[in-house]
């Protein structure tokens, strides 16, 4: 399988990791050529970039609408859905996509009652995970699913370096469609997010926009599960947007900044993961945390230094 050859490829690179790294620092173009000469790295960059752009943009609204916990819940749904699809012999990505979007639309329709209802979300989320655990157990104990349950680990922690051409193409296609939908609803969405009451009065279909948006979150989550895994989705869904909102309060600049940051984080994670023997997801989450914590630190130091009251850099939003 291409995946195992990709792993061999990686371990070959790891043997002379330091040397390769030195060569890269001496001749970046050659290093880049060498890295992108591998199919699995090209596919990883394709899938990772489309996900990062989408995650950065959608994440901005997730933070503003305080949907971080809902995004977390959807990532857990995606975990159970992926394993369920594998168990029934479907493509994991397709199963994950269909079920997660369906659950998201259901959540969106109940949004009014479910707003800030962490307990209901948490209870459903835990149960869905329990179902996922059952699927995992059935799958790993079945004849076809030996392999030490690697599939579950892949879904939980991501498997970006094992992405195949078809999956990468699907990721780019889904990403583009989601991006078009987001751009179509972006103005009413922003209006409905910042001031739902006024938006409603002005004739913006607030409820419909909200449901469409939670559907977009589901699409983003399924893409992110491939890149960083179900447990680490928030690293690409929330961190870049939260960091961007700390630097600017103007929505469209923050959106661009958030998407750019997500892309940079993903690319850096992929490059580090290529040269070092540690998981890509680890690098992406660590860099994401570093950029957010660094931003907080710099701004705290700045506010101390300029003797302005702390917290003068406002988070955009109500």
């Amino acid at each position, binding site marked *: 399988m291409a995946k195992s050859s990709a792993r061999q490829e990686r371990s070959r690179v790891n043997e002379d990791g330091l040397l390769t790294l030195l060569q890269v620092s001496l001749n970046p173009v050659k290093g880049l050529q060498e890295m992108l000469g591998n199919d699995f790295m090209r596919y990883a960059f394709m899938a990772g970039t489309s996900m990062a752009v989408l995650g950065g943009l959608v994440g901005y609204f997730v933070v503003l609408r305080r949907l971080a916990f809902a995004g977390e819940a959807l990532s857990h749904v995606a975990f159970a859905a992926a394993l369920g699809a594998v168990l029934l012999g479907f493509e994991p990505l397709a199963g994950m996509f269909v079920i997660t979007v369906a659950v998201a639309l259901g959540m969106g329709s109940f949004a009014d009652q479910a707003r800030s209802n962490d307990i209901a979300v948490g209870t459903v989320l835990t149960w869905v995970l*329990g179902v996922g*655990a*059952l699927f995992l*157990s*059935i799958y790993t104990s079945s004849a076809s699913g030996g392999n030490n349950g690697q599939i579950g680990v892949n879904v939980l922690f991501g498997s970006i370096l094992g992405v195949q051409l078809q999956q990468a193409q699907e990721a780019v296609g889904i990403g583009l469609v989601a991006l078009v939908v987001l751009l179509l609803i972006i103005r009413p969405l922003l209006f409905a997010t910042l001031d739902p009451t006024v938006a409603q009065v002005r004739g913006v279909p607030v409820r419909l926009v909200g449901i469409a948006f939670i559907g977009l979150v589901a699409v983003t989550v399924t893409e992110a599960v491939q890149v960083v895994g179900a447990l*680490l989705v928030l690293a690409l869904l929330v961190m870049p947007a939260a960091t961007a909102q700390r630097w600017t309060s103007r929505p469209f600049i923050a959106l661009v900044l958030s998407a750019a940051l997500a892309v940079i984080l993903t690319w850096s994670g992929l490059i580090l993961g290529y040269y070092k023997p540690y998981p890509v*997801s680890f690098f992406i*989450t660590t860099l994401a945390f570093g950029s957010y914590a660094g931003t907080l630190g710099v701004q705290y130091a700045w506010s101390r230094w300029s003797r302005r009251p702390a917290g003068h850099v406002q988070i955009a939003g109500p």
Partner: protein
Amino acid sequence: MQASWNPLTDLQLLFQYHFMHNAFLAGTIVAVVAGAVGYYMVLRAQTFAGHALAHVGFAGAAGALLFGLSPVVGLLVVGIGAAVGMGMLGDRNGSGDAADGVAIAAVFTFAIGIGLLFLQLYPGQAENAYSILFGAVLGITDTDVETIAAAGIATLIALTVMARPLLFASLDPEVAMARGIPVRALSIGFLVLLAFAVAQSVQVVGILLIFALLVTPAATAQRLASRPPVAIALSIALALLFTWLGIAVAYFAPYSVVGFYVTTIAFLTYAVVVLLTSERVERAWQSRAHARSAAA
């Protein structure tokens, strides 16, 4: 294992093996602690914090495996560190606003990333990851039971000591503060207790399924009883019921995934209670009672 549908024989079958004794002992202690601590967690609306503490614990357990320690030790150390950190970063009364939610998400995704690194460094990652994430109640050793019992008793004593001021501080932080109750210290102390409860529960239900014992029994109890002592007792009873039933069903069922059965029983109970206590149903009951009294 085949169930015989004869309750007495089944009970004998259930307690036939030593690992089942340990499973029930550990499960019982954990259920009591989680039921009691969970009540306060739901009351203080700190579900996301509990979720985050559980995820942070993943790094601790994985790190402990790497250094050859018991996962419980790693969970306790990292959990207490994260609890104190979150309590210090959080606002005055410790409940999270949007910025706090982002800060919590930042800390716990980072912690899982580190946990993943630890697992990668430690051979045999898949199975270890699963036992941390989904629990391994049927593999609990005698030493584990002793650790869980010691930690559980300590947690319960600490909770009993701070029960009344904590209740006051949770229900009305402003007035409590005016009355001289150290609200902030209580908030940090409670997060530490939560970390203790999480660390113990991980072996039974795993990090990902901890909500089934922390949130669901407490949330169900709060729907049924409004007086705190009654609600806490009910929450503990429900947590015990879920755990015992889950372990028993898993023992007899074809797939011994304790976490799945515990979460399913918990979820169904919560769903039924929500349905029965919803306003529409209550109104229907009242109107029926009215009709009956009018007829009589």
